C-alpha cells in the first residue's frame, strides 16, 4: 500500500479515455462501478470539451456482484454500439471490474458485434495513466492497421508522415499540433494522419501508408511507433521539438527522412526567442537556479532550454514516470546533478526546498509548492489544470512554442532592467529579487524575510543628515555620492552602509566605506 494525498497520474483506464476521447467514431465500453464516471469531468471541465467523452460505463452495484455483472457489460456494449454506431470499440475494465474478472474481451467477442472490438488489458494495480494511454494506442494501431498496405514509390510524390501522440487532456497538444503541421508544410511533407487526436478507426487502417512517423509524445506514442517501425518499416523522428535547438534538430531530422530542404523551415522569421535571450535585458537570467519537475519529455526539454537557451543553472531535475527515468537521469547527468524520480509530491516538495531555486518549472502540484515557498513558478507539464487550456494559441513546440516558453518562464521573475537597478541593494525588502515581480501579487515577500532583513523599522527616505553636523559619520564627499543613488533605494543604501560601518568598527563613512559596503552586500 502506498499512502497518497495526490497523484501525478490517474489510473490506466483514464489514459485509455484520453485516447478514446481524442479520437472520432471510436467508443469505449468500460466495465466499472458507479462513481468511476467522475473521469468525464476531467474532459468536460478541465479541457472544456463541449462533448461527453465517448465512454459507456457499466456502473454495476454491489447487488449485481456475483449475479449478472457480465450481462450488464454485454447490455451496455450492445446499447452503446446501437446508439453511437462507432467504427470500432475498445473494451476494458477499471480497477474494481478487474477484480471481478468478468473478461470484457471474451464477453464482447462472444457477442458478434458489428464493428471491430479491441480488448484492453490495463493492470490497474501496477500501471498508471500514461502507460494506459500508450498501451491503448498501441492496441488500437496494432489491431486496426491494414497490414496489406503497400506504400507507393517515393518518386514523384511528397513524403508522407504520421504525427503520433497528441491526446485529449494533453499539455498543449492542441497547439503543438498546429506548429508541427506548419513545419511540415514548410518542408513539403504531407500528413498521412494525426493520431490519436482527431483520427477515426478507419484512418488508423491506412497508417502504413506513411513513409515515417513523428513521435511527439513518447509517453503515449513510443510503443505504437516501435511496432510500426517493425511492421511497416517506418522510421521514426524522436526528437521532441521543444526549444529552439530541439526544433532545429527536429526540422533537420524530418528533412532528412523526407529528402527535403530544411532551409525554409529553419529560417522561420517568427522565432524571436534567440534574440530575446541574447538581448541585454536578459543578462540577469544568467545562472538563475531553476528546479524542474514534470513528465519526462517536458522535464528533459525544459532542462535543455534552461541550460542552453536561457543560461539558467539547473539545480534540480526530476520526473514522475519511472518508465522514462533513463532519459531524465541522462539529462540530469549533463546538468551535473542527481535526477529525482518519484511520484510522491512530498518528496518533490522537500527537494525543492533543499535546492533553494529561484524559479520552479513543474506541474500544477509544483505550482502550489512554489506558492507555499514563495518562489516564482511556471507550469511545463501535465497533469493538467483548467489554466493549461488557454483560449489563445499557446504551444510548447516549434519556434512559436519557444517564444511562448520564454514569456511563460521569464515573466514570473523580476524583469531585467528592473532587477538591474535593484541589484546593488538586493536585501531591501521591497526591491529584492526574493520579492518577485511587482505585478505578481502572489509573489509578495514572506513576512519572515521582512523581519530578518529590516532590523530597523523601514522609514521613509530619511533626509541626509548634514555632513558637517557634529556626530555625523558621513563625510561630505560620501554624502554627495549617496545622493547619486536612485531615491527609491537610497534609504536602504544609507542603512546598509551604516550597518556595515558599525560592524566593521569604522568611525567615519567615506567614499571607500560606501563602496566597501556595496561590495559587501553584493552577491
Amino acid at each position, binding site marked *: 500500500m502506498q499512502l497518497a494525498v*495526490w497523484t501525478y497520474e490517474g489510473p490506466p483506464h483514464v489514459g485509455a479515455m484520453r485516447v478514446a476521447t481524442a479520437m472520432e467514431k471510436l467508443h469505449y465500453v468500460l466495465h466499472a462501478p458507479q462513481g468511476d464516471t467522475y473521469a468525464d469531468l476531467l474532459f468536460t471541465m478541465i479541457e472544456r470539451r463541449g462533448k461527453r467523452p465517448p465512454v459507456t460505463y457499466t456502473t454495476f*452495484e454491489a447487488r449485481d456482484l456475483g449475479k449478472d455483472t457480465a450481462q450488464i457489460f454485454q447490455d451496455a456494449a450492445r446499447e452503446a454500439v446501437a446508439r453511437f454506431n462507432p467504427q470500432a470499440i475498445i473494451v476494458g475494465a477499471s480497477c*474494481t471490474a478487474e477484480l471481478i474478472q468478468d473478461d470484457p474481451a471474451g464477453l464482447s467477442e462472444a457477442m458478434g458485434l458489428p464493428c471491430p472490438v479491441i480488448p484492453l488489458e490495463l493492470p490497474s494495480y501496477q500501471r498508471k495513466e500514461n502507460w494506459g494511454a500508450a498501451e491503448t494506442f498501441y492496441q488500437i494501431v496494432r489491431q486496426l492497421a491494414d497490414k496489406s498496405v503497400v506504400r507507393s514509390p517515393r518518386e514523384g510524390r511528397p513524403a508522407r508522415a504520421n504525427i503520433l501522440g497528441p491526446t485529449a487532456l494533453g499539455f498543449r497538444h492542441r497547439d503543438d499540433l498546429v506548429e508541427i503541421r506548419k513545419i511540415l508544410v514548410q518542408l513539403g511533407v504531407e500528413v498521412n494522419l494525426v493520431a490519436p487526436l482527431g483520427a477515426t478507426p478507419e484512418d488508423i487502417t491506412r497508417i502504413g501508408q506513411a513513409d515515417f512517423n513523428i513521435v511527439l509524445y513518447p509517453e503515449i506514442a513510443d510503443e505504437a511507433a516501435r511496432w510500426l517501425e517493425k511492421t511497416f518499416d517506418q522510421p521514426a523522428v524522436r526528437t521532441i521539438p521543444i526549444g529552439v535547438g530541439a526544433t532545429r534538430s527536429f526540422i533537420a531530422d524530418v528533412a532528412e527522412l523526407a529528402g527535403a530542404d530544411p532551409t525554409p523551415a529553419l529560417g522561420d522569421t517568427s522565432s524571436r526567442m534567440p534574440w530575446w535571450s541574447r538581448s541585454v535585458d536578459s543578462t540577469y537570467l544568467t545562472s538563475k537556479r531553476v528546479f524542474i519537475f514534470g513528465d519526462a519529455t517536458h522535464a528533459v526539454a525544459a532542462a535543455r532550454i534552461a541550460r542552453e537557451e536561457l543560461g539558467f543553472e539547473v539545480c534540480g531535475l526530476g520526473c514522475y514516470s519511472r518508465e522514462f527515468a533513463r532519459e531524465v537521469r541522462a539529462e540530469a547527468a549533463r546538468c551535473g546533478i542527481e535526477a529525482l524520480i518519484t511520484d510522491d509530491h512530498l518528496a518533490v516538495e522537500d527537494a525543492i526546498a533543499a535546492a533553494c531555486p529561484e524559479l520552479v518549472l513543474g506541474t500544477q502540484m509544483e505550482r502550489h509548492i512554489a506558492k507555499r515557498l514563495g518562489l516564482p513558478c511556471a507550469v511545463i507539464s501535465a497533469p493538467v489544470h483548467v489554466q493549461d487550456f488557454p483560449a489563445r494559441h499557446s504551444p510548447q513546440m516549434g519556434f512559436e512554442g519557444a517564444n511562448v516558453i520564454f514569456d511563460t518562464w521569464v515573466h514570473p521573475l523580476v524583469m531585467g532592467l528592473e532587477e538591474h537597478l535593484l541589484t546593488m541593494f538586493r536585501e531591501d525588502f521591497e526591491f529584492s529579487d526574493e520579492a518577485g515581480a511587482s505585478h505578481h501579487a502572489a509573489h509578495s515577500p514572506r513576512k519572515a524575510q521582512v523581519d530578518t532583513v529590516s532590523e530597523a523599522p523601514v522609514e521613509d527616505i530619511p533626509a541626509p543628515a548634514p555632513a558637517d553636523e557634529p556626530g555625523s559619520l558621513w563625510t561630505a564627499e560620501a554624502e554627495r555620492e549617496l545622493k547619486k543613488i536612485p531615491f527609491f533605494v537610497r534609504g536602504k543604501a544609507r542603512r546598509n552602509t551604516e550597518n556595515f560601518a558599525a560592524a566593521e568598527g569604522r568611525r567615519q563613512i567615506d567614499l571607500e566605506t560606501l563602496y566597501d559596503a556595496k561590495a559587501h552586500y553584493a552577491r
Partner: protein
Amino acid sequence: MSAATLLDGCAAELARPAADTQRPVLRERGQREVFCGLTGIIWLHRKMQDAFFLVVGSRTCAHLLQSAAGVMIFAEPRFATAIMEERDLAGMVDAQDELDRVVNRLLERRPDIRTLFLVGSCPSEVIKLDLAKAAQRLGAVHMPRVRILNYSGSGIETTFTQGEDACLAALVPVMPALPANSAAELLIVGSLPDIVEDQFLRLFAEMGITKVGCLPARNARNLPSVGPNTRYLLAQPFLGDTAMALEGRGAKRIEALFPFGVEGTSDWLRAAANAFGIDKALTEQVIAPGRERARIALSKLRPQLEGKRITFLPDSQLEVPLARYLQDELGMELVEVGTPYLHRAHLARELESFGPGVRISEGQHLERQLDRVRADRPDITVCGLGLANPLEGEGLTTKWAIELVFSPIHGFDQAADLAELFARPLRRRDMLEI
C-alpha cells in the same frame, strides 16, 4: 404531528390528497453518471476538524478525490488514500499488516488527528478487506488518543451524499448515551456549514431550546449524546441509514419539511418547537424576522425564475426538497425530478406539493434520460460536472449540482443565495451576446 399544530404556512400543503404518495415513479437502471460516496469526504473533512479520512482503495479513488476536491487538495487536506498495489492483492503481503503500517505512519506524522475514519472503497469491498476488524485492532492500539472508525464510501454501495450517511451512521454507535431520565434534547442531523448551523442554534436558543446537539459535531471527539429522549431533526434528505441507527438508540424523528426556502425552514423550525412544547406565539416571534428577510430577498429573484422549466438529473438526493422549494416559492415549473434514491418516508411531505404533471425518476439510465432532456428542452437542467458543458454545447442551460452540496443553502438567510444559484445561469444566458 397533527395538522392542528401547524400554522398557515404549511396547512395548505397538508390539505392535498394523500393519494399523491402513490404517484408513479419512473425507475431506471443503466449507466449512472454520479459520484460515489467517497466524494462526501471533501466536505466532511472540513466539517470535522479533528478527523482524518483514510480511503483504502485504488489509484482511481485517489484520482477521484483530487479531481472532485479541485484546489482544496493543495491545502494540507485531512484525507488521503492508501493505494492498494499488486502485491497487496496477490497475497504477497497481508493487506491488514500493510494497513497497520500505513496507519501507524500517518498517525505519527499527524499528531493532530483525533478520529480516523478507515473508508472502504469498491476494490476493498470486492476483495472483502475487513475494515471493521482493522478499525477495532488499530483502535485498541491508538485509543484513547485516536478513535478509529470505519465506513464504506464505495461506489458499489453508495451514491455521492450517501457517503455522508454512511459516515454519520458509523458515528452513532460511539455517541455517548443520554440517560433515560434526562430532559429531552434536540439533535440536528446532517452536516451544515458552520455559519448555517450557528444561525439555527441561535434561533433554537431564542425559542428556549438550549440542549441542541449537531451530528456531525465540529469536533468528532465531542459527539452529542443520544438516547430515548433525543428528538432528531434531519437537515439533509439523504440520511436514511443514520436515521435508522439513531432510531436504534431510541431517538425519535421530528417530521418536517427540509429547511430550504422560507416555508421549508419555517416548517422545520416549527416542527422542532412543537416537539419541545414551545409556545406558538414565541415560535412565530422568533422566526418572523428571518421569514421576512427571506421573503424580501426572494421577491427580487422570483421574477427571474417564475415560469421557468427545470429538470433535475439524479445527483445528491437534494433534488426533491429543492424542487419543492423552487416550485412553491419561486414559481418554477418542474419537468423532471430525478434522484438517485427516493426515501419515501423522509420525503413524503415534500412530494405532496408536486403537481401531477411532474415526472419523478429514481435511479438512472443516462442515455435515455438525456434523450428526455433533449425532448423536454427545460430552461435549466441541474446536472453533474461531467454533463454540464456537453449540455451547454447543445444549447441547454445548466446548473452544476455539486455547488448545491458545497454552498450554504439551508435556512432563511440562505434562501435567496439558493435561488441565485439557479437564477445566475439563466441571467448569464440572457446577458451574453456572443
